[in-house]
Structures are given as C-alpha cells and as structure tokens.
C-alpha cells in the first residue's frame, strides 16, 4: 500500500481535531498549550504535504515562519503560565477569568 499525500492530509486533520477539542475541553494550562502546539504542527504537516505534491517551495517556507512564531509564542505563553502557577498552584484556566464582562 503506497503512502500518498491523502494519508498525510488525513493525519494532519486528525491531529488538528485532537488539538482543537483538547483546547476546548481541558482546563490545565500546560495541556492546553500542548494542544495548541499540536494544531500548529498539524498545519505544518499539511503545508509540507502540499508543497511536495504541488512542487511549490512556498509551502515549506511558510512552515519556517510558523515554527519561528510558535517558538516565540511558547516563550511568552510559558512565562505567563509559570507566573500564574507560581502565585496560585493548582490553578486552572477557568480561574483566570478577569475578562468576564
């Protein structure tokens, strides 16, 4: 059985779905963070797949940008989460709801 582009795309979609459901369902900030990473990488996988099948290097280029942004985002996000957890251990995301209208 040959592994075609479709397999990669389906895998990407599955990982993205897991990530997004996890983001909405879980309360632990670290887990939610990992879900976001899952989603980002699912998209990366899709980009690379298309870049190969369409023979267009632009898709791979975008992946680099996404990686860079994700790295930056992780730095900031982890900083915030560590700050919150240090102040209130066991805190869930729902405890941080100052934006409530």
């Amino acid at each position, binding site marked *: 059985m040959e592994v075609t582009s479709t397999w990669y795309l389906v895998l990407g979609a599955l990982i993205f779905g897991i990530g997004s459901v996890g983001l*909405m369902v879980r309360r632990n900030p670290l887990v939610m963070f990992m879900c976001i990473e899952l989603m980002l990488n699912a998209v990366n996988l899709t980009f690379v797949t298309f870049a190969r099948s369409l023979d267009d290097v632009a898709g791979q280029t975008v992946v680099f940008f996404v990686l860079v942004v994700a790295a930056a985002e992780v730095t900031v996000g982890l900083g915030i989460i560590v700050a919150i957890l240090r102040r209130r251990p066991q805190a869930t995301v729902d405890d941080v709801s100052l934006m*409530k*209208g």
Partner: protein
Amino acid sequence: MLDLVWLIPALPLAGFLLLVLFGRRLGEPLAGWLATLMVAGSFVATLIVYVGLLDRHHDERVFTQTLFQWMPVGNLGVDIAFLVDPLSLTMALFVTGIGSLIHLYAIGYMHGDERFSKFFLYLNLFAFSMLMLVLGDNLLVTFLGWEGVGACSYFLISFWFTRESAAVAGKKAFVTNRVGDWGFMVAMFLTFAAIGSLDYLDLFAEAEGLAESTATFIALMLLVGAAGKSAQLPLYVWLPDAMEGPTPVSALIHAATMVTAGVYLMCRVNPLLAAAPDAMWVIAIVGAATALFAATIAVAQNDIKKVLAYSTISQLGYMFLAVGSGAYVAAVFHMVTHAFFKALLFLGSGSVIHGMHDEQDMRRMGALRKLMPITAGTFIVGWLAIAGVPPFAGFWSKDEILLYAWEKSPVLWAVGLVTALLTAYYMTRQVVMVFFGRPRWEEEAEHARVGPAEEHAQEPVAASGAAAELHGDAAHGGHGGGRPHESPPIMWIPLVVLAVLSVVGGALNLPFTSDLMVLEHWLEPVFGEHLAHAHVSTAGKWTLAIIATVTSLVGIALGCLVYERRKVKAVEPKVLEQGWYVDATYAAAVDGPGRAGFDLVTTGLDAKIVDGAVNGSAGLVRMIGSRIRRLETGFVRNYALGVAIGAVGLLGWFVSRAVV
C-alpha cells in the same frame, strides 16, 4: 505715494504693540506722547496718500492695495486689502486728524490716572481698528475693524471698571452692538450668496444686476448693523450709557468717529442702495425718527455729557436722513462738520468736568465763563455750530440735509426742522446752565463746608444724573471742592483748533457756485449717478435756508427766555428725563417675557430635546452593552470555541462556493 496706504493703519498698530510691551515702563506722560505721535504720523501718512490721489485724474481716483491673502476658502477669497478712494480717504483724514487732537487732549485729561498707559493702548488700538474699517477693500475687512472698534468701545466705556455703572454700561454697549453685528453678518452671507464675492468693487459692479428684493434685504440687514453702531432707533440705548467712559473717549469714539461708521457703511454701499429704493425710504424714516426722538430726550437731561450723547444720536439721525434721501455728500459733509463741533463740545464738557473736579450735573454749574474763558469761548462756538447759526460749520451741512429731505418728502423736512429747533433749544439750555446764570457750585461748596452729614442729602441729585466721574486719583481729590479752574494748555489747544474748524468747516462745501462745492466735487466719483440732485430753484433754496436759520434762532431765543431770563417756566417732563422710558421698557421686556422665553428654551428645548437626544443615545448604548456583555465569560475555552466555530463557518463558506 499711494503705496503708503498700509502705513495709515500700521502706525497706530505699532503704537498699540509698543504700548503693550513697554507701556508700563514708559508711564506718564511718555506713553501718551507715543500714542499721540503714532496717530499724528498716521495723519501725515493720510495726507501723503491724499496728495497722491489728487495727482490722479478726477475719475480715476480709485486705488487698491493688497497686503496678503487672508482666507482663501473655496470660492471665497478674502484679502487684507485697502481701498483708497475719495470717500475712504475723507474718513481717514478726519479720523486721524481729530484722533490726534483728542489723543493730545487726553494726555492732560488722564493726568494722574493709575492706568494711564493702558488708556492710550486702547486708544491706539481703536485708531487702528477704525482705520481698518474705513480703508477695508471688502466687507470682511470692514467687519474686522467694525468688531475692533466695538471691542475698544467696550474696553474704554468700562475703563473705570471698579465703578459698577461703568462696567454695566460697557456690557450694555457690547451686547446692543451684537444685535447690530448680527445684521451685518447676515448681509455679508447674503452678499456672498448673491454675487460670490465680498469685495466692494465687485459689489458695486454687480449691484445693478441684483434682484430688487435681494438688494433690499441686504441693504436692510446692513442698516441693522449700521443702526447698532451708529445708535439709531431702536438700538440707540447704549450710547447715552456709554458716557460712563472718560470724556476723551466720548469725544473720539462716541461722537466723532466710531458712531459715524454706520453712516460711512451706508455711503460705501451706495450702488447697492440705489438698487433698493424701498430700503432708502426705511433709512430716511429711521434717521428722521431718531433725530426727533433723541432731540426730545436731550431737552430734559441734566448730565452735561448725556445732553451731548442724545444730541449725537440726533445728529446721526440727520446723517441717516441724508443717506436715505440720496444726499450722500450731505451725509459725509455733516459727518465731518459734526465731528468737528461735537468733538469740540465733548472736549469742552470734559474740560468743564475737569475744572469742576469731576462734577457732571449741570444743575450744580453756572457762571463758569469767567473762570474758564477759553473753554467757555470754544464751547460757545460749538454751540452756535450745532445750533445751525450761519456762518458756522453746522449750518451749511444741516441746511443741505434739510434741502434734500425736502426733495424726498416735505414730512421728513418738517421733522428735520423741528429737530433743528429742539437742537438749538437744548444746546442753549446747556450753555446757559453751564456758563451763565448763578454760580450754583458755590452753594454746593457751602453745603460741603457745613459737614459730612449734608453729603447724604445731596446723594439723590448725584444719583439722578450719571454718577460723577471719579478719577480715582489723589491729585484731584487733594484739591476737591476748590474753585473751578481753567484746564491746562494741553487740553485747551485742541479745543481752540477744533473751534476754528467748527467756524470754517462749512467752507468745505459752500452751495453758492459749483466751484465752491469742493467736497461734492471731490466725492463725486464715488457716488456718481446715485447722488440725488436738488431740483429746488435758487429762490426756493434761499427760502429753505432762511426758514432753517430762523428756526435755529427761535430755538436759541426760546432757550434764553426759559433758562437765562427765566420768563417762562422750564418744561422738563419726567417722561423725557427718563428717555421716554425706552430703557425701562427694554429692561422689562427682556426681564419678563424675554427671560420667560429663554427659560422655556433652557428647560424645554435644551433640557428635554437637546439633552434628551444626548442622554438617550448614551442610554441606548448602555442597554445594548448590558445585554451583550454576557457573551464575555472570561473562560478561554469559550473564546476558543468561538474561534473554532468561526473557522468552521469560513471553511463551510469556501467549500460551498467551490461546490456551486
């Protein structure tokens, strides 16, 4: 030489700026001399321009100078530009000429005042504004000067602002003038709407093509403005109160120059008036009515300056009558001669007030001619001039106005004639009360010596006349209550110059042969065919002149009979002393229905509708916000769900487009 026009207003402006910066340091009397020099320099500049204009051919005496573009807005282009023609130059000549004499006089009059330099600062600003008004090349520059003189008038009326009455009088003048300014502004809007320009030269060129209704409306709105500035019915009420200001101010602003601005404006727009014959009638009737009305009030005033104030209103009425009759030259002629003799009378009264130690009530004067010979002599010249006794200046100009009034309508002429009679009567009354008869101030001095308790008994008298002018300086208080004395030379020299002018001023326009009508010849290019011509025969003219002269003499004789010989009991009804209760009526109207109306506007319109709209929209936003805020839960997963739903929605939209 015509290029020097800009110097005419620039010099007083420079004086103003210098006094703003260094006024206090210059102090007395240097600040006064600086201001006087600037206005005198402006007079010299005007003379140079005058010579330059004379060089030109009779019909080509129009010159415009554009300094800079002021406001280019779409189709509206307004420049700071000057229009020099015989009319504006005549005005500029007498404004600067008489202005410098009065500046000189004020150095003596304001002696010892704490805010000496401030006074001259205002005077110079006034001279600048007045010259902008006169020389402006379009309605807006004129309006700029118009507002400037109004503001200076306000500053100077309430110059002694610590006195309640002066502060109130200043406010009254300012507010009343606003009503007139409204008319001026509406006229400007209409002019721009009708011809697309505010320049006088464009207006003159297009006036003939205007619809009569448009021209009439513009002219009437300008009349509202002119009536405010020139104290005509029904907006005259501020001028008598304006006498609270220092006397040089009354002479300069409220007799000789500023109040003639309205007449000048009417003369300036003569081509427009020619297109609006109905407006001419209104102007003539307003003028005649004002002349008679103010003259009746002047008969019963006891304050030396109030008499002159009402007299000024009356004489301005004459000028409007002349304008309404199409006799623009006569109007300008009377403006000039009136400036001579009314400035003289005001300065004379100032000299009397100064000599009497700030006493203004004529009932406490009398027999001053021996103590103040120069003031008395010059005042008597002014009296004869305003009463219309030949050959004094006033006779010639008033006679010419009456001639054209006769031409317009015998009724207007009759009103003018009765006014002339009253003028001669009340001026005689004033001269007799001040300079002849018993020295009543001696009785006052006796009273004063009895003790301070007597002071209270005199207060009602002081209250019924305008409050005595308090200089607030120790120099006068120091020898207060002493004998009246003649004023220093710096004050009587201007009096003498003005007296000479009041005698010979008539020579500007003698009606005997056309060669002698210098002023008419000079002004002819400005008015051209719009000038009314008298069709009365020479014999008719002589008859009218003789009737006018006899009327004046009868008025003088009556005045002597009543106040000098005391053969007839004086008729001074309370209704006249109170000015026909016009002020009281205005006050009652504004305080009663007026206040109620404004209350209605504030509580009804403003509080309910205007505030309602503002508060209502705020309330609406608040209500919507309180519903929508529930969406903001603050839970991250809710936001994530929102993003996911959005993404799915977008995806669905793209897919549906791809499928269809």
